[in-house]
């Protein structure tokens, strides 16, 4: 057994005694931690929705002509894509010569209870896209959807197969709900015991705390204990602490989901698997994913417990695109975008794939 000097032991004990205060301080300060700092300009708003254009960091002759529109999930805030300087997907894409736009769905109020998921894809996203087209002065737009955002992106692309979407990037799309045993949400919200109509009729919009709690219950020990143990272990590393605080803020800084969007997701998407069954109708038009023919990059997270990989694997099977590249990364649902290795794996993969399909830089 190795000998331990009294000084080393005393130092370790003293450090351990100071740790609780520093850890609690880091947790309590996380709500104030600065996030989403990449410079941007609001170019359009509608109700709670805002469309931002990030300030390019490359000269015009180094920017790809086709802009990139980020479509994040409707149930959380999108700053996970622009977490903090040095750990920002938006910053990375700007540096790689992309003209980046972001649609922020905002926080719905009680007056938005009637908004469905279809409205996001058929009513709101088309409006945001036409503003991007106008602002960028180009018809084609690359769309990047993440989680529910990829569902909205697919809806839009199926309804508008002739453009203007040039390329689709789908991150962890919750597409095929037929494999129910993989997903805890499917078990919890099973139609045999969950009465979605009674729930929605009584609660209205799905409260933010219900979304956060539901997501955290998927990995209850990791989220309620493990996350704090990780902070405890890394409390001496300021960069790790800052990253942890930004993530903690994102997890706990959610938004409500409109009542009808929740009802529709449970009834049509989760229970009826309507998106892939071809039975889903939006504004009188049947959603047929095989009408989508643009190149698709489908990214799955192998350790995803929110959208199990099997829900996303069928993209190539259901879409009409000849070019569907599926990338499976060893990460979780959130870690895929914001984890410590995201800038080594996901971000360069996306940038390289899009760069080949977004036109020569400086040719807009």
């Amino acid at each position, binding site marked *: 057994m190795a000998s331990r000097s009294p000084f080393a032991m005393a130092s370790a004990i003293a450090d351990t005694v100071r740790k609780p205060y520093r850890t609690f301080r880091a947790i309590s300060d996380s709500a104030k931690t600065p996030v989403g700092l990449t410079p941007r300009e609001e170019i359009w708003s509608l109700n709670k929705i805002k469309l931002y254009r990030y300030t390019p960091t490359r000269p015009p002759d180094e920017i790809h002509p086709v802009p990139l529109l980020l479509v994040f999930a409707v149930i959380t805030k999108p700053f996970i894509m622009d977490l903090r300087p040095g750990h920002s997907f938006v910053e990375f894409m700007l540096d790689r010569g992309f003209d980046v736009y972001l649609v922020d769905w905002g926080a719905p109020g009680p007056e938005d209870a009637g908004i469905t998921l279809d409205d996001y894809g058929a009513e709101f996203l088309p409006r945001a896209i036409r503003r991007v087209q106008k602002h960028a002065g180009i018809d084609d737009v690359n769309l990047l959807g993440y989680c529910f955002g990829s569902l909205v992106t697919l809806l839009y692309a199926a309804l508008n197969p002739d453009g203007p979407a040039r390329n689709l990037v789908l991150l962890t799309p919750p597409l095929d709900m037929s494999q129910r045993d993989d997903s805890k949400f499917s*078990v*919890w919200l099973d139609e045999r015991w969950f009465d979605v109509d009674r729930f929605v009729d009584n609660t209205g919009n799905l409260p933010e705390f219900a979304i956060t709690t539901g997501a955290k219950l998927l990995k209850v020990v990791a989220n309620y204990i493990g996350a704090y143990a990780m902070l405890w272990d890394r409390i001496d590393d300021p960069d790790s602490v800052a990253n942890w605080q930004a993530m903690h803020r994102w997890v706990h800084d959610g938004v409500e989901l409109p009542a009808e969007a929740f009802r529709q997701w449970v009834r049509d998407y989760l229970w009826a698997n309507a998106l892939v069954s071809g039975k889903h109708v939006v504004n009188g038009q049947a959603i047929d994913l095989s009408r989508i023919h643009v190149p698709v990059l489908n990214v799955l997270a192998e350790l995803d417990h929110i959208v199990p990989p099997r829900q996303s694997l069928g993209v190539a099977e259901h879409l009409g695109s000849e070019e569907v590249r599926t990338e499976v990364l060893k990460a979780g649902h959130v870690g895929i975008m914001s984890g410590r290795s995201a800038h080594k794996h996901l971000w360069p993969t996306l940038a390289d794939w899009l760069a080949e399909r977004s036109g020569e830089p400086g040719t807009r």
Partner: protein
Amino acid sequence: MATSNDAASNPMETIRRLRDRLLGAAGNAADVVTGSEAFGQTMARTMNAAAAATASVRSVAHSGAEMAAGWLNIPTRRQLIELATRINRIELILDDLDVAASELLDRLEEAEDG
């Protein structure tokens, strides 16, 4: 990550490793429990019951608030929500008009240039 040297010099390292093993085991057990149909049923029934229980309280609170708003001659919550919903619809129409007007202006400019 911690090394064997760290473990030798830091007595807390042993505790940390034990903790991680314990958390790993507890996490696996919790996954089994929360992924079970029994847990799903319990959760769903709790949500159903909570929705039913709060419905009557909510109904009483709403009718009380509406009555009070009526006495004070101020708009009720329901009326304000209806108004906000109408404004949202108007905003959609204005957005379409804005785009149409912008396109018209662009064409006029093109015609003038041409």
